[in-house]
């Protein structure tokens, strides 16, 4: 399945968002995720099925003003 993750093209076998994070080695309880500009909460990732062409954003806490 072809996806865009944080602006970069990926070809993955993962079917769910949680599996995608594992496959691409995104680790940490502090991550925030969105699929096609909609929030997917941490506890919803396991059941969130991905489809070809999805755009995924994976964000992490950073310094800010």
């Amino acid at each position: 399945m072809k996806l865009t993750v944080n602006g970069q093209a990926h070809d993955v076998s993962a079917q769910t968002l949680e599996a995608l994070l594992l496959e691409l080695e995104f680790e940490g309880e502090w991550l925030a995720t969105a699929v096609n500009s909609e929030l997917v909460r941490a506890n919803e990732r396991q059941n969130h099925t991905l489809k070809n062409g999805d755009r995924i954003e994976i964000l992490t806490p950073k310094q800010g003003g």
Partner: protein
Amino acid sequence: MLKLYGAEISSRLLLGTAQYPSPAILIDAIKASGTEIITVSLRREMAGTKSGDGFWSLLRSLELRVLPNTAGCHTVKEAVLTAHMARDVFSTDWIKLEVIGNHDTLQPDVFALVEAARILSEDGFKVFPYTTDDLVIAERLLEAGCDVLMPWCAPIGSAMGPLNLHALRSIRGHFPEVPIIIDAGLGRPSHAAAVMELGFDAVLLNTAVAKAGNPPAMAQAFAKAVEAGHQAYQAVVLEPRDMAVPSTPVIGKAVFT
């Protein structure tokens, strides 16, 4: 005591966490400032790096209130989504709402800001809107559900200090019961003291501390200035007078001929 959305806050200084020379200096500056509220952001993670780990651990060890921002968002949609993502990560419904309208001045797009503030307030967020010093926009933000206002006093990171005292006095005077935090544009402690003397409730600093020669020392200097300015406001400041007025009694003065 300062109350922000029901939370009682002792320190009237809010501190940003960006641009410090090192994490150790950031921690020292936070401690020296006495702040209880720090601002943070969300940015893209890189696969396999766990790049947020260090900062996340730092935040957890500090045990302060976290105010996530929507820095860099230019549209209502971006800002609303970022706020929702921040709520999921930081487990807070506080959000420093920024919707930028101009790249050079980082001036907020106040039309988008009001719309995003209404959407987020309806979604249960406690919105801290980064706005201009425009009185009518301030009124619209309050109507949209904000209980706190955060006007700039000069562009972000400019260190120019309060540029339009008349506008700031107008906002303060029109909304005496609303907590108003001066966010952005302060460069030195005397700027912070000046806005606190006008009766503002708190200041939010970042660049002025982070980019100082000695950030922890500057954080402490700002904390003193904020406290001094607030105390001066409570003590009621003498307004300027056109004529000299002798401070020493005139009656009883000796006459030498």
